[in-house]
């Protein structure tokens, strides 16, 4: 082992995160998502001009974990709250961080209308196919036959429909400038996710419209898996239902991401 002093520090906890320990379960990729957002803000030097809107969900404490000005939305209403902030502070960077229950279920109206208005905010959409915080109920994003505490014999698509693919849907809206889906299940994908977050925030900075990065994420606790198994489950089961990709990249946004 080489003494650290002689070496260059190539990675450390980003400044846009606080030192607080999170209350996420071990191996939960909410933590990865946080880190990526914080790194992106650091790199873009936006920490001091960013306002984070935290969701109701496991990430409810996000406003404490990020070293940013922040506030706490009502369940699902983060995009409305962010709209209120952004309209008054158009030169600030406004982020919402939302789970799939928050965004795709109770908050679908607010995200659609924010996107439809082309509201220049950025949404980090953490899709773990379940309601994490409340103990593992079915979400609109749960997979067919997925067992949850409110679909104990598996999600019955005949009664509850197919998983809701939000990115695909939002991509139909002209106001959406940048809508992509990435995954956090391995380092290579995490790297791509980071890049997408950077682009999304830049889309906001340039005022190109609404931007959202959907991140496939794990919930080892409620899936009843080890953290490593959970990553595999994302790869083996979620990717086919939620194909990764760029669902909407407006022309102006394309220049940025290129």
């Amino acid at each position, binding site marked *: *082992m080489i003494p650290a002093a002689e070496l260059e520090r190539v*990675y450390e906890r980003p400044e846009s995160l606080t030192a607080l*320990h999170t209350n996420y379960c071990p191996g939960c*990729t909410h*933590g990865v998502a946080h880190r990526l957002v914080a790194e992106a803000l650091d790199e873009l030097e936006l920490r001091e001009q960013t306002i984070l809107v935290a969701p109701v969900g496991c990430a409810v404490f996000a406003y404490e974990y990020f070293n940013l000005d922040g506030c706490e939305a009502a369940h699902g209403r983060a995009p409305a709250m962010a709209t209120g902030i952004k309209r008054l502070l158009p030169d600030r960077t406004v982020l919402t961080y939302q789970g799939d229950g928050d965004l795709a279920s109770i908050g679908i109206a607010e995200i659609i209308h924010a996107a439809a208005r082309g509201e220049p905010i950025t949404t980090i959409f953490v899709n773990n196919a379940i309601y994490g915080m409340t103990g593992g109920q079915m979400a609109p994003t749960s997979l067919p036959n997925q067992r949850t505490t409110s679909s104990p014999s598996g999600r019955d698509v005949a009664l509850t429909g197919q998983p809701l693919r939000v990115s695909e849907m939002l991509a139909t809206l002209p106001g959406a400038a940048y809508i992509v889906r990435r995954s956090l299940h391995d380092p290579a994908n995490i790297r791509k996710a980071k890049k997408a977050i950077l682009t999304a925030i830049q889309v906001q900075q340039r005022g190109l419209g609404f931007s959202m990065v959907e991140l496939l994420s794990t919930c080892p606790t409620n899936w009843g898996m080890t*953290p490593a198994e959970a990553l595999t489950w994302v790869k083996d089961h979620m990717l086919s239902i939620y194909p990764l990709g760029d669902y909407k990249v407006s022309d102006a946004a394309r220049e940025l991401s290129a």
Partner: protein
Amino acid sequence: MALKGTVVIDQERCKGCQLCTLACPQNVLLLDADLLNAKGYHPARLEESHNFCTGCAVCAVICPDACITVFRQPSPRRVERTEAIYG
């Protein structure tokens, strides 16, 4: 040839999720079975026996709890810090 590097793990932050230990290409991370941190977890630890840490930062990229600081032998081509690890 691989670069030389090392990691410093904030063992109090660590939740022993093993994502880093499984992801490390050099297999130089493991959970410390002897140590229980205040949160009650066995934290990850660097253990270089056969292999050595290259400072590739794969562990840091996957760690959900931002516990890992990565150091690397200065490379000829200078790049921005965190950007470096995301290639």
